[in-house]
């Protein structure tokens, strides 16, 4: 491997022209130091060593030891694996009561700045299911894939069902586990709710 004297990019030994800037390089005469000896120190490339790296890496601090426009857009979903989950099993229908407090760390794509309850549930079979909240609370309801854990890809999110501050989602599900998050609309939302799941 050589270095191009024009752009200092690397040039494979067999190449006459620099692949970066098309500068023509001299051919090394057979049996001589050739290009290296003529262009001098500093232009020859290639040590035989490299610094081992890996993704998930911890870089060596020294050789010896080893959104567009700057905006990322609005903060969107968050998922906290440390949030306790309650398993609702594999049956339907489901009716369960819960209480939201003001402290929470999960947010759905359509909102949910308050505290939340996280449930896991496995549909008894593939089909269409309606998941909804009841009560006086202003809730946000979102559902995530829970094949691996309760922080999988969000499948759907609803803030308000028409004419109400409760939430409802109707989903076609395959029978694999999902996580259901009942969240408070704002950080002041607190109180009791009922979560129901109905097959159709």
């Amino acid at each position, binding site marked *: *491997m050589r*270095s191009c004297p024009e*752009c*200092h*990019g*690397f040039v*494979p030994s*067999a190449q006459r022209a620099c*692949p*970066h800037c098309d500068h023509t390089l001299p051919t090394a005469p057979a049996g001589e130091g050739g290009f290296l000896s003529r262009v001098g120190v*500093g232009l020859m*490339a*290639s*040590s*035989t*060593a*490299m*610094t*081992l*790296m*890996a*993704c*998930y*890496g*911890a*870089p*060596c*601090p*020294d*050789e010896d*030891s*080893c*959104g*567009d426009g*700057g905006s*990322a*857009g*609005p*903060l*969107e979903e*968050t*998922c*906290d*694996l*440390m949030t306790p989950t309650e398993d609702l099993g594999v049956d339907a229908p489901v009716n369960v009561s819960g209480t939201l407090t003001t402290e929470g760390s999960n947010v759905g*794509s359509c909102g949910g700045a308050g505290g939340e309850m996280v449930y896991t549930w496995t549909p008894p079979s593939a089909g*269409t299911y309606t998941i909804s909240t009841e009560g006086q609370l202003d809730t946000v309801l979102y559902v995530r*894939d829970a094949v*691996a*854990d309760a*922080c999988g*890809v*969000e*499948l759907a999110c*609803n803030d308000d069902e028409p004419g109400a501050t409760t939430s409802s989602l*109707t*989903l*076609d599900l*395959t029978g*694999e586990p999902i996580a259901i998050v009942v969240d408070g609309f704002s950080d002041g939302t607190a109180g009791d709710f009922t979560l129901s799941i109905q097959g159709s």
Partner: protein
Amino acid sequence: MAGRRLDVVGQDFFPAYVVWELTLRCDLACRHCGSRAGVARPDELDTTEALEVVQQLAELGAREVVVIGGEAYLHDGFLEIVAALAKAGITPVMTTGGRGVTAQLAADMKAAGLQRVSVSIDGLEPTHDRMRAYRGSFAAATAALDHCRAAGLDITANTNVNRLNRHDLEGLYEHLRDHHIRAWQIQLTTPLGRAADRTEMTVQPWDLLTLVPTIAALKERAFADGIVVMPGNNLGYFGPEEALLRSPSRGGRDHWQGCQAGRFVLGIESDGAVKGCPSLQTTAYVGGNLRSQSLREVWDTTPELGFTRSRTVDDLWGYCRECVFAESCLGGCSFTAHAISGRPGNNPYCHFRARDFAKRGLRERLVPREPAPGRPFDYGVFDIVVEAMGSDEPSLDDGALVQITRRAQRQR
């Protein structure tokens, strides 16, 4: 202790640099996580088994072991394992998201013999918290840097760069510099694991035309600040900035010399599965398991560990097969190429390649064809489409992180 800089032209292969996933359990659920970390694997090595692995690593000459997760500190035997590595003469290092790194834990890690910590920080606060899917994770990661420095650990950082955070790099550098990091590793987010569910997030090959020079300029700036910026294995490849990018010191003439998985690099999954590199796809590259085989046996005899040792240009395909740098490069990073096409040997995430297409007014676009199935270190398949530079493409919008690609579940 000996370092991580090695003559890689030699044929005396040994696992000099090891990345060891102690547990897949994690306190974050990062949107780009290749291992889909969160819940522990069903049958992870316990402390007693891990300590036996330490001895085997020492016998094979390992120089440095980076413990990762999940979060390595969530393994019950974390500190004991770190201490055993240090006692065995192996440099223990940790990569972490930092959420649980308190001042006390940092002090305990130092006392156990941990030498260096790399905190994963992927952008300024809004971007980082968005990628990590946890509000407060940026503050926690920054605090982790400070706690580790106060405890006397060497602190470094690493960043996955993608379309969400590429414009944060300069500001992030200044943030990291102000928190006294000594080195910074930047690697491309590859469509692996959860990132394969969110393909709008990952860069397209032509993005390298601006991204690589940006990182090279940051590296020049960092030298002046006494900070070493290094590319991960999947970033760069033979553009004009290659020597600057790949060399750990100013004026160096290092360049990429092929994937070192199974040559001088080793990856261990938390259930004892052994791969040539921690990021390699589990289904294709696990050579054996430490519960049933010795590390030496897996290292010496299995084709999954030895696939790069005999790699030649004849193993390459597509553009890489005909590239003028093929003999030195050998197709770039294996796991990255595999994450795109389902096999190594042709890697469109290449600066030289992007520049070569651009000279002809063309670019390559990665178009998802098959989704990832949803397991740790899994991958989808992409078509590589050649098109005119400047062609229209879907813009990255706020919905890009919430893609449903695995199953036909939908809201009615």
